[in-house]
C-alpha cells in the first residue's frame, strides 16, 4: 500500500495537467464503428472472406458413376441487393422498398465454375446459385457510405443503425448468441463433485466433445462417439505411444502426478501395443447407423485410428497419423485434472467471460450457408449420378440442374422463422432471430446489442445469471430483463467490440520466430520445467518458450504498431504456466488508452487534433496510443479509472467510465445515484416509451407504430444520449413536476396531471396500425377483385359500411374509419367445380371478402399503398392513425424506473402555483422516493431546473455530470431556492402551502400501455362452440374469468348460490334429462338405455359436464349420475 502511495506522489509531482476530454474518443470510436459494428463486421467478414473459405473447402463435386465428371468452384461472390420484377427484369433495390412491399432484401450469390460436359471442359463465370439476404449497412448494402441526403432519397433514416435483415417485409435481427468457448481446456467439477476436464472441439465440419474424468482413482477419456470411457493409457497407446515412461513424462514426472497415474498404468497391463489399443477402442465405438453407399465398411482398427485422428480432439491437427501434438494435448488435459484435484484454484469458471464466445449473424449465417451449400452440392451429385448413365440426345450439363431456390429458401426461411437447423452438427436452435422491435428508437437499438445465452431459462442456478466481475466494461450491468430471463439475456456495453477471426498462420510463424519451440521437437519432460511456458494459439498447442515475457512483449509491440491484427489477445496465465494467444472470433474486447511510465500516451495535443479532425480513432490505434484488450488480457493489465489513479504499475487507462453502461442504461441521468434495480427497471421501460422511431417513420407501414406528437430532447442529457442520437429521436417530454401529495388520487405511484397541459399537447400520441391485403391470381384464370362502393338507388348514397370507400374500392385517404366499415372491398372467386375442360362461358361467381375495421375507436386513413409483392400479386397496404391524449389510466414513467398511471386529471386552476405563476404539468407523490431511493431523479429535477434558468442542457452522465453543489449555486444565482423548493399556493384555497414544494422539470416517458387498448367489460356475448362457455380474452369480447382462487374464496365463505350462479348459470348452463334408474343421460324424457320414461328427471348441468360424460362414453367409460331428492 505504501508503495503505491509513493508512486502516486511521483506522478503528481510532475507539472502535468490531467486529461479531461478523453471521452471524446468515444464518439470518434462510434463514428468509425457505428453502434452495431459487431453485427456488421461479422456479416462483412462472412460475405467477403468466410464464404470463400467455405466454398474452397467444398470446392469439387465428383460423380461415382462417371470418373471424368467433375465440377469445381473457382470463386464465389455476393453481389449488391436487387429484386426481380417478373419477366426477368432485375433492378437494384433499397431496404425501404423491400420493407413496404414485403420483399426480401437480398443479393445474388454467383460462382465461377469449371466443369465437364461430356468430354469438354467448360468454364462458366457469374453463375447464380441463390440469393443471400443482406444485412443493412453491411459492405454490400446500398446504404453503406451514403450521406444523409442520399439516405433520405432512399427513404432511409440516417440514425438507423442497420445490422438487421429485411426478409419478406419484416425486419429480422439475428441475436448475438453467447456460447461457452470452444477448443479450450475447461476443468470443472462434475455432478458428483469429481474433477473433470472437457474440451469441445469445433472445426469446419466436426463438432465433438472430449472429456477426461477420474473413476476409482483411474483416469478415462470420454467422447460422444465412444460407448464407454476408455482408459487414458489405452488412448495413448492407440496413438502410438507405447512406452509408459513416455506417457508419464508427457503428463508430468513430478512425484505427485506420477503417483496419481499409478492406478491407470496398472489398469491397462493387457493392452500393450498400438494395434491392441486400437482394437480395444474399435470395439467400444458407437455403431454407425448408415454407411454411405458404395464405400465399404472399414475394419474396427482403421475406424478407431480415424476416430482418434479426426474426431477426438478434432481441432488438434493430425497429419499423416502423427499423433504427437494430440497426445501432448491429451496429456495436458490429464495434468490439469490431476492438478485441480489438489488445488481447487486450478478449476476453471464456466461463467467467466474469458471462457465465452459470442456468436454473431455472420458466423451463424456461415453455418447455415455451408449446410445449404453442401446440400446443394450433394443434390447436384445425386442428379449427376442419376442422369449420366442414361444415354440422352443432349449431353449432361450440370448447370441446367443448378436450382437457385434451394440456397435462397434455406437462408430466408432460417432468418424468417429463427429456426437454425444445421444437419451436419445435428444442431437445432429456435428463436435465433427476432422481429426488430420498432416501438421506439431505443428498443430497436437495444435489440441490436442484446446477447442471448443458450442456457435453459427454467433451470434454477444462479451462476450464469449473476453479474460476473469479468463482465466489467463489456456487458451492461443494468440492462437485463426481470423474471425468468434475468441475467441470461444481457446487453453489450457502449464500446464493446466483438472480434472476427483473423489469420492464424502468420501469427504462428511469428511466434516461432520469436523463439517458441514447436511441440513436435521436444519430449514431454521439458514442457513442465520451471520457467518454461506453454504457448497456445487459439486453444492449440503451439510450443514452449523459456522467455515468455519476451514473447509477449514482442507480440504486443507488433500489435501496437499494427503488424498483427489489433484484436489479437496475449494472455499469460501464471498458474497454468501458459501463454494464450488468441485471434479467434467472438471474443469481447474494448479499447483502452495505453499508459507507460505513469503517463497516458494520449495527450491533450492528440485530443486537439481529434477535435480539429486531423486524427481519427484508427490513427490512435495505428500510433499505438490505444489498444483493444479482451477479457483475458485484461487480467494481465493494470487499468486505471482515470488519470488520478495512475500508479507506476498502471498499464492502461479507461477512455470514459460511462461506457461501461449500455445503450439503454446510458439514457439514465445520474444512474450512479440510483439504487441499482431502478436502473434495470428503466432499461426495460425505455424500450416501451413512445417517441420518434426514425426519420422515415411516416413512410413506413408497420403493424403497430407509436409516435409522440411533440417529443422533446431531455433537459438533462448524458453523453450517451448524444452518442446514440437519442436527442434527435427522443421518446418523452420534459414535464414540470411538483413533488407533493394531492387529492388522494396519487397513491401507489399514480400521477396527477394538469388538464391545461394535456390541452396544450403534453403526452399526446399517435398510434398507427396497418391493414393489408393482396389480390391473388388463381390457376383457373380467375383472380381476386376490388369493387367500388355500393350505391343506394334512391338516395345515391353508399351504405354505412361503404361510406369511406373511394371509387376504386379502397378507403380514401383522410377518411375517418369507424367500427365495421370496410377498408378494402375485396371479393374472391368461388371455386368452380365445373370440369376444367368446359370453356368458361359464364363469369365466375364472387364471394365478398372485405377487409373491415374492427376496433371500436375510430381511426383515420393515413396512407394507402398499392404495389405488388414477391409473388407478383397486388399488394394493398393501408396505414390507419389514431391521435390520443392522455387519459386516466395511461402509463407514464420517468427515467428512473418510477412508473405510474395517471390517477386524476385536474383543471389548471386547481393546481398549485408558485410565485412566478408556474403551474406544474404533473404532481408526483413524494412517497415514491424513500423506498425506491432514486436520488438520481431528485438530481435530475434540480439540474433540469438550473438548466432552464440558464437556457442550457445539463449533463447527468454516469460517474460524471453536473455536481449538485454547482447546480445549487446556479439556482441561487437565478433567484431560486438552492434546494429546489419553492413556495406554492394551493389552487383550491388560495393559501400558501405549509410545505415548500420540490419542483422542476423531469423527463417523462409515455409508455405504450394505454387504457384504451385494455379496457374491457362484457355482460353477455360470444361463447365457445365446443363448451358453450364464454370466450376468453378482450379481442374476442370474452368474459372475465372467476378463477380458482376466487372460487376458493367463495367456497370458504360459503356463498354456494353465488358459486352456482358464477360457475354455471352465468356460464354454460344446460338442461338435461337424466334417467334415475340407470344414471345415464336421457333424451327428451326418454331413457334410451332403459327404454322407459319412468324415472327420467329434468336437471340443470354445466354443458361442459355433459360434454365430458359424452366424451367418456365414447371411450367406453360410462359415468352415471345418482339423483336424490333435495328434501331427503
Amino acid at each position, binding site marked *: 500500500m505504501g508503495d503505491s502511495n509513493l508512486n502516486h506522489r511521483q506522478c503528481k509531482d510532475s507539472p502535468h495537467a490531467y486529461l479531461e476530454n478523453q471521452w471524446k474518443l468515444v464518439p470518434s470510436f462510434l463514428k468509425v464503428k457505428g453502434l452495431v459494428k459487431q453485427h456488421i463486421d461479422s456479416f462483412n467478414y462472412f460475405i467477403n472472406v468466410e464464404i470463400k473459405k467455405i466454398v474452397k473447402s467444398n470446392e469439387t463435386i465428383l460423380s461415382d458413376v462417371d470418373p471424368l465428371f467433375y465440377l469445381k468452384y473457382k470463386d464465389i461472390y455476393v453481389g449488391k441487393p436487387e429484386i426481380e420484377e417478373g419477366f426477368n427484369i432485375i433492378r437494384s433495390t433499397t431496404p425501404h422498398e423491400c420493407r413496404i412491399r414485403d420483399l426480401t432484401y437480398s443479393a445474388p450469390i454467383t460462382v465461377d465454375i469449371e466443369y465437364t460436359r461430356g468430354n469438354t471442359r467448360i468454364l462458366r463465370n457469374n453463375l447464380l446459385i441463390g440469393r443471400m439476404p443482406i444485412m443493412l449497412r453491411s459492405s454490400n448494402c446500398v446504404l453503406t457510405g451514403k450521406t444523409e441526403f442520399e439516405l433520405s432519397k432512399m427513404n432511409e433514416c440516417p440514425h438507423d443503425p442497420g445490422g438487421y435483415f429485411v426478409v419478406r417485409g419484416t425486419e429480422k435481427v439475428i441475436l448475438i448468441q453467447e456460447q461457452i468457448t470452444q477448443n479450450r481446456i475447461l476443468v470443472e467439477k462434475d455432478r458428483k463433485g469429481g474433477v473433470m476436464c472437457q474440451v469441445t472441439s469445433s472445426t469446419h465440419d466436426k463438432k465433438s466433445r472430449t472429456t477426461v474424468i477420474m473413476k476409482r482413482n483411474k483416469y478415462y477419456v470420454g467422447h460422444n462417439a465412444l460407448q464407454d470411457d476408455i482408459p487414458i493409457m489405452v488412448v495413448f497407446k492407440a496413438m502410438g505411444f507405447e512406452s509408459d515412461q513416455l506417457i508419464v513424462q508427457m503428463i508430468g514426472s513430478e512425484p505427485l502426478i506420477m503417483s496419481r497415474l499409478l492406478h491407470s498404468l496398472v489398469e491397462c497391463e493387457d493392452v500393450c501395443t498400438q494395434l491392441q489399443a486400437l482394437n480395444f477402442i474399435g470395439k467400444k465405438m458407437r455403431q454407425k447407423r448408415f454407411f454411405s453407399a458404395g464405400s465399404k465398411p472399414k475394419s474396427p482398427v482403421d475406424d478407431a485410428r480415424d476416430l482418434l485422428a479426426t474426431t477426438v480432439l478434432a481441432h488438434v491437427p493430425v497429419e499423416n497419423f502423427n499423433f504427437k501434438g494430440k497426445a501432448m494435448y491429451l496429456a495436458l488435459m490429464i495434468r490439469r485434472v490431476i492438478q485441480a484435484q489438489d488445488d481447487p484454484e486450478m478449476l476453471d469458471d464456466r461463467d467467466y467471460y474469458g471462457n465465452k464466445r459470442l456468436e454473431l449473424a455472420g458466423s451463424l449465417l456461415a453455418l447455415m450457408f455451408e449446410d445449404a451449400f453442401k446440400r446443394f452440392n450433394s443434390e447436384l451429385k445425386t442428379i449427376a449420378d442419376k442422369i449420366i448413365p442414361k444415354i440422352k440426345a443432349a449431353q449432361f450439363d450440370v448447370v441446367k440442374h443448378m436450382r437457385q431456390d434451394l440456397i435462397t429458401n434455406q437462408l430466408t426461411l432460417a432468418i424468417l422463422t429463427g429456426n437454425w437447423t444445421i444437419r451436419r452438427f445435428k444442431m437445432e436452435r429456435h428463436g435465433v432471430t427476432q422481429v426488430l422491435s420498432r416501438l421506439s428508437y431505443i428498443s430497436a437499438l437495444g435489440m441490436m446489442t442484446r446477447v442471448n445465452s443458450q442456457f435453459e431459462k427454467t433451470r434454477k442456478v444462479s451462476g450464469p445469471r449473476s453479474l460476473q466481475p469479468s463482465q466489467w466494461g463489456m456487458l451492461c450491468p443494468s440492462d437485463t430483463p426481470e423474471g425468468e430471463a434475468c441475467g441470461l439475456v444481457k446487453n453489450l456495453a457502449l464500446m464493446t467490440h466483438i472480434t472476427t477471426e483473423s489469420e492464424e498462420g502468420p501469427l504462428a510463424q511469428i511466434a516461432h520466430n520469436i523463439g517458441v519451440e514447436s511441440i513436435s521437437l521436444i519430449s514431454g519432460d521439458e514442457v513442465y520445467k520451471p520457467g518454461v511456458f506453454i504457448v497456445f494459439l487459439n486453444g492449440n498447442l503451439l510450443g514452449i518458450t523459456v522467455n515468455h515475457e519476451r514473447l509477449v512483449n514482442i507480440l504486443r509491440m507488433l500489435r501496437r504498431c499494427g503488424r498483427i491484427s489489433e484484436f489479437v489477445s496475449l494472455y499469460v496465465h501464471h498458474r497454468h504456466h501458459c501463454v494464450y494467444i488468441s485471434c479467434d472470433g467472438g471474443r469481447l474486447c474494448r479499447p483502452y488508452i495505453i499508459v507507460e511510465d505513469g503517463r497516458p500516451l494520449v495527450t491533450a495535443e492528440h485530443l486537439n487534433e481529434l477535435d480539429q479532425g486531423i486524427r481519427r480513432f484508427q490513427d490512435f490505434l495505428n500510433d499505438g496510443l490505444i489498444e483493444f484488450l479482451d477479457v483475458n488480457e485484461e487480467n494481465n493489465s493494470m487499468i486505471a479509472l482515470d488519470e488520478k489513479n495512475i500508479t507506476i504499475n498502471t498499464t492502461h487507462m479507461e477512455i470514459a467510465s460511462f461506457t461501461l453502461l449500455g445503450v439503454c442504461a446510458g439514457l439514465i441521468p445520474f444512474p450512479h445515484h440510483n439504487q441499482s434495480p431502478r436502473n434495470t427497471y428503466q432499461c426495460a421501460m425505455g424500450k416501451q416509451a413512445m417517441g420518434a422511431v426514425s426519420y422515415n417513420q411516416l413512410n413506413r407501414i408497420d403493424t403497430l407504430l407509436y409516435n409522440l406528437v411533440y417529443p422533446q430532447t431531455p433537459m438533462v442529457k448524458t453523453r450517451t444520449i448524444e452518442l446514440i442520437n437519442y436527442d434527435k429521436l427522443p421518446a418523452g417530454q420534459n414535464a414540470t413536476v411538483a413533488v407533493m401529495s394531492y387529492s388522494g388520487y396519487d397513491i401507489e405511484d399514480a400521477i396527477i396531471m394538469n388538464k391545461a397541459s394535456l390541452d396544450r*399537447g403534453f403526452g399526446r400520441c*399517435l398510434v398507427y396500425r396497418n391493414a393489408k391485403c393482396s389480390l391473388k391470381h388463381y390457376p383457373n384464370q380467375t383472380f381476386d377483385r376490388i369493387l367500388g362502393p355500393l350505391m343506394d338507388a334512391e338516395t345515391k348514397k353508399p351504405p354505412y359500411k361503404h361510406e369511406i370507400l373511394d371509387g376504386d374500392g379502397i378507403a380514401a385517404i383522410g377518411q375517418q374509419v369507424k367500427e365495421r366499415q370496410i377498408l378494402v372491398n375485396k371479393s374472391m372467386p368461388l371455386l368452380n367445380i365445373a370440369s376444367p375442360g368446359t370453356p368458361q362461358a359464364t363469369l365466375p361467381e364472387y364471394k365478398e371478402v372485405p377487409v373491415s375495421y374492427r376496433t371500436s375507436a375510430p381511426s383515420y386513413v393515413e396512407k394507402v399503398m398499392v404495389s405488388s409483392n414477391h409473388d407478383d400479386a397486388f399488394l394493398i397496404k393501408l396505414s390507419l392513425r389514431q391521435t390520443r391524449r392522455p387519459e386516466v389510466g395511461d402509463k407514464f414513467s420517468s427515467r428512473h424506473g418510477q412508473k405510474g398511471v395517471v390517477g386524476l386529471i385536474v383543471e389548471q386552476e386547481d393546481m398549485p402555483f408558485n410565485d*412566478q405563476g408556474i403551474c406544474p404539468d404533473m404532481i408526483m407523490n413524494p412517497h415514491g422516493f424513500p423506498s425506491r431511493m432514486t436520488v438520481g431523479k431528485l438530481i435530475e429535477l434540480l439540474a433540469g431546473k438550473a438548466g432552464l434558468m440558464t437556457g442550457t442542457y445539463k449533463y447527468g452522465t454516469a460517474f460524471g455530470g453536473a455536481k449538485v453543489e454547482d447546480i445549487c449555486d446556479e439556482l441561487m444565482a437565478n*433567484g431560486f431556492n438552492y434546494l429546489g423548493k419553492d*413556495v406554492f399556493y394551493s389552487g383550491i384555497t*388560495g*393559501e400558501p402551502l*405549509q410545505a415548500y414544494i420540490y419542483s422542476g422539470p423531469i423527463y417523462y416517458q409515455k409508455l405504450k400501455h394505454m387504457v384504451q387498448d385494455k379496457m374491457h367489460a362484457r355482460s353477455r356475448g360470444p361463447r365457445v362452440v365446443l363448451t358453450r362457455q364464454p370466450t376468453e380474452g378482450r379481442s374476442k369480447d370474452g368474459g372475465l374469468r372467476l378463477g380458482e382462487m376466487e372460487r376458493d374464496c367463495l367456497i370458504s365463505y360459503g356463498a354456494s348460490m353465488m358459486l352456482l350462479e358464477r360457475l354455471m348459470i352465468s356460464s354454460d348452463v344446460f338442461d338435461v334429462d337424466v334417467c334415475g334408474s340407470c344414471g345415464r343421460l336421457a333424451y327428451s324424457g326418454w331413457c334410451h338405455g332403459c327404454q322407459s320414461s319412468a324415472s327420467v328427471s329434468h336437471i340443470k348441468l354445466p354443458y361442459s359436464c355433459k360434454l365430458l360424460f359424452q366424451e367418456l362414453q365414447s371411450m367406453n367409460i360410462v359415468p352415471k349420475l345418482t339423483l336424490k331428492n333435495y328434501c331427503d
Partner: protein
Amino acid sequence: MGKKNKVTLNEHNVTNTADDFEDLSSDMKENLKDFRDKFRIDIVKYDHEKFEFDMIGIPPAIANAVRRVLISDISDTIINGKPDHHLFPFLKSELEGVNFESVEEVKQAVHSFIRGHAERLPRTRHPKAVLLVLVSVSDLLGSSWLCGEVPTMAIDRVHMLNNTSLMQDEVLAHRLGLIPLKADPRLFEYRTEEESEGTDQDSLQFELKIKCSRNVAAGNDKTLPDDLYIDHKVYSKHLKWIPIGGQEDLYKEEEIGPIHDDILIMKLRPGHEIELRAFAYKGVGRDHAKFSPVATAHYRQLPEIRILRSVAGEKARRLATCFSPGVIGIKKNKEGTEEAYVIDARYDSSSRNVFRYDDLKDCVEMTRVSDHFIFTVESTGALSPDILFIEALKTLKKKCKELSDQIP
C-alpha cells in the same frame, strides 16, 4: 397589521398560512366599514399584455377566486339569449375608454370604476356570513351594470380540404386551435350544438391556403430552405379571415385574426399543400385551455424581510446575495462599518437562500403579508388584461348572486 396576518417562511416549512375563514368573515361582517377603508387596489405595472396590481385587504380565498375565474371560469355563467345589440354602442364606448396609454391612466380608470360602485355596497343583505362577505366583496370589486362574460374565441372546428403536408390533420387542427385570436368574444354568442353551420353571430371563419414550391430564382449555391423554397413556413399570418354574413360590415379587417403574425404553424416542402377552413367559436377555459383568455393569472403575497440583528461586513454582502438584487442594500452605519438593510422586499423571489448559511439564518425573518396580493394577469391578447380583470370580477359577482339566490 398584527402578527396574525403574516405568513412566516421558516427553514423547512411555512407557518401561519391559513387564516381561519370563519374568523375572518365574522371580522369582516362586523367591520365592513373597516374593510372598505382598508381594501385597496394599487396598479403597479400595466402594458397591453401584462398587468400587475396589488390587492390589499382581502382573504386569500377571494383573491384565489378571482384567479380561478381568470384562468378558466370567466363567464361560467352564461346568459341565454342574444346579445344586446342596443347595448353594443355603449359597450364599445366603455371599452374604448379602457385602452390606455400610461399606467397612471389605467390606475385612475380602475379606481374610479371600483370606487364608484363601492358606494352602493349593501349593508347586510344576507344572514349567511360567508356569502355576505363574498357577495359584498364582489360587489365592492365588481360593477352591476352588466353581467360579464369574457370567454375567448378560438378555432374549434377545421374542415380539411387538402393536406399533403407531413403533419397529421388532427395535429394541425390542434395547433390551429391554440393560436390566440384577435376578436372581442363579448360580441359573439355561444354556438349551439344543434346548428351545423355557424352563423355570423357565433363563428368566425378563416381560410388557410398555402402551397410550397421550389424557388426557381435561387442560385445553385443556395442551401438554406429559406432561399430554396417559397412558402415553406406556414405562419399564423397566413390564416385569412373570411367574413360570414354581415360580419364584413360589423368588423374591420384588422379587428379579426391571429394576435401574433409570427406563430409558426408548420413547415412545408415543395409539393406540400394545405387548404382548409377553420371555424372559431366562443368557449370557456374550462372546456379547453385554448379558450383561456390569460397566459397566466396568479398572485403572490407581499414578502417582508426583517433584519433581526445587525449584519455587517462580508456577512452583509453575503446576505445580499441570498435575496433578489435590490432587496438588501448595504450602507455605512454610525460606526462606519458596512451594514445590511432592507431596501424593498417586494421583488424578493422568496428563495430563502439565507438558510444555506448557518451564521446568517437567524439574522433575518421572512414573512409574507397574508392579505396583500400582488396579482399578475398576462393576457393572451384577445382582451387587454385590465378588462379581463374587471370581467372576472363581474363573473365572480354573478356567481355569488346565483349562490345567494339559491340559499333561502
